[in-house]
């Protein structure tokens, strides 16, 4: 299965997070909200200007900016 960046995912596409390659405040924030390796993720949609992106994770909906989504690798399945 191919591994791509979260930014490149299409609407309604799902996958499993394989890596979150960022530390510091952003990294901590991302993990606090449940974005950790091994978790399933689905793209719910994008804002009218394609950014930020809304994702479904652990039964809730989160939003991320594209430049933040760049740190997250997802294996499409």
């Amino acid at each position, binding site marked *: 299965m191919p591994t791509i960046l979260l930014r490149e995912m299409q609407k309604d596409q*799902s996958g499993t997070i394989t890596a*979150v*390659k960022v*530390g*510091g*405040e*952003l*990294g*901590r*924030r*991302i*993990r*606090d*909200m*449940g*974005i*950790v*390796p*091994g*978790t*399933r993720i*689905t793209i*719910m*949609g*994008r*804002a*009218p*200007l*394609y*950014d*930020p992106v*809304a994702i*479904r*994770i*652990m*039964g*809730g*909906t*989160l*939003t*991320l*900016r594209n430049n*933040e989504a760049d740190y997250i690798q997802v294996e499409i399945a």
Partner: protein
Amino acid sequence: MSATITIALAGNPNAGKTTLFNTLTGARQHVGNYPGVTVEKKEGAYIFPTGEEATIIDLPGTYSLTAYSVEEVVARDYLVQEKPDVVINITDASNLERNLYLSTQFLELGVPMIIALNMIDVAQDRGISLDAEKLSALIKVPVIPIIARSGKGTAELMAAALELARKNEPWNPLHISYGEDVDLALQTIGQRITAAEFMTDKYAPRWLALKYLEGDSQIREKGRRDNPAVDAELQEIVTGVSDHLHKTMETYPEAIIADHRYGYIKSVLRQEVISHKFDADRLHASDRIDKILTNRFLGPIIMLAVLLGLYKFTFTYSELPVAWLETFFGWASDNLSTLLPDGHLKSMLISGVIDGMGGVLGFVPLIMFMFFGIAILEDSGYLARVAFMMDRVFRIFGLHGSSVMAYIVSGGIAGGCAVPGVMAARTLRSPRERLATLLTVSFMNCGAKLPVLALLTATFFSSNQAQLMFLLTLLAWAVALTAAKFLRLTVLRGESTPFVMELPPYRFPTFRGLLIHTWERTWQYIKKAGTTILAISILIWAMMTFPALPESQEQNFARQRQEIMTAASPQAIEALESADTPLPAEAVQIKENLAAVDTAQAGSALRHSLAGRIGTSMETVSWLPGFDWRTNIALVGGFAAKEVIVSTLGTAYSLGEADEEDNTSLSETLSKDPHWNPVMALALIVFVMFYAPCFVTVVCISKESGSWKWGLFSICFNTAFAFLLATLVYQGGRALGFTG
């Protein structure tokens, strides 16, 4: 155990914490602030069926206990320092896995805790079934399913809390294994902490070690202050582990810790605690709504409609109560003026106290309706969608999608108020984006600027007043956003904050929650208005009254009156005294002449007063944007509250007391005055829109930013900017020959 027990409510934002708090405490609430920060501290009382009482503290909603924003710090400090008897961790049962991340951190801290599985009904509708007893057995804390909205299960929850508080057991931290590398580092750091007795009076060594490994900035700062040598030593171990992890696995200690926490949660939930009837990714009703409300084309259109609707709702429905209040203040003013003898006391009570308070309290219905509308948007979950849709635009200006609400409240749709707008900026988590928002929301056309703008546009641009007002709203947006960008490029330079944000499911707001929300904010406004504004309006009144006209001038006006009376025929005087209607023509003439003398006297008195002198001396620079001393006085008065500008202009143009309410005569006077022309009016409009925020806003900015420096900054920055812009308009307009 003390007589009353303390129970802290903690949990993720959107887990229903505030709803539970309202259900438990009802109206027995008290809202204050945590010392030194702007986070609200809500306390309430709960009475058990046995008659025992508990103090309930609503901690700020957080996702984690690691210092990220001021909310997390406040919640953690409260738990560690105040040691509540019980923590009720409220979780969203339909979203349990992520909610348990915070619970796990409470377990690691060791606080006596109860987990409330809230919205158990929503979870069931989504096909999620939870085994509360099993969960309780596995993590060894009581777990109670509840529905906070209806109050179902809250009695059991409170009974369990009382029982736990009675046990009064010592804190019992949970030790999770974080994998070999981190566990080893934890052990090493923990031993050093114990040996050096490093802050052990406040924190458990292992917990402290964990925070060092997580890179918690607040704990590190405390450590550095407490014992710099040990802090440096610990930091060295942390750096060693970090480097090792980065080299071998390309990861970070905090990442490993988070992964293992989630691992712990998964291992618990997997033991038949949770089961899904449907696919977890299934679309819920909320998602279907989002398909329309955040749709690329429909979304922005609906958003505009909703915001316009909010605006319409606020203004249409508040019209009547505003009119009632105006009538009431008019009545109070009339009564006072007949009851009291003429003099400074009467003048102060009417011009200072009643007009000042009336100006502010008159806004209360408006603000109440606006807050009610915003509470609906907020509690239903729509506001988060607005932030989501607007973020890309606001980010261009160095702001955050959440800034949008602060701007709208402040007058993004003309007619808000910067005071609640400044307070609305609380939802912003990054200090820089928050400050940029705080400092620029006052550029919006708040309700108090509107009378000034309405007067000037009606007088000088009557043929296209509506279009001009609309253009001025757009101008306010353009200026505010550009100023924000400017600030973010200069004094507030720095990275933008993560936008990672939750889109909570849509919910029907509870009426009670809306009312509490609305009342809290309205009351904050009234309190500020009742204290600061009252003092300032008395001060402004004094500035506009003293020093009084010298005796010789007073006599001069008295003589003029005398002359009018002596020239009059006895019949006319008799008619005046008997107050018969209709008056003969001569009597009407005399009355008008007398009034003219009165107003001329008021005008000279104002010019002679301190405010008048300030206004006159300011003419040395104010000729640039074309303002004379009268306008200057009005602008000085406008610092107290922008609505004062119109009434002060009236006094300065010697229109007398009677005309203050009625702008038509002021409008006539201005249009006839040779000094005034459309270019100067436009310069004044621009100046009024952008100069120093009113005093209450400045106080709020200072409080919210935690420093008077920023309040002062907003006065200077805005005034300088407005002056520049107004000068440009006036001089530019003149150069282009528009002064006719």
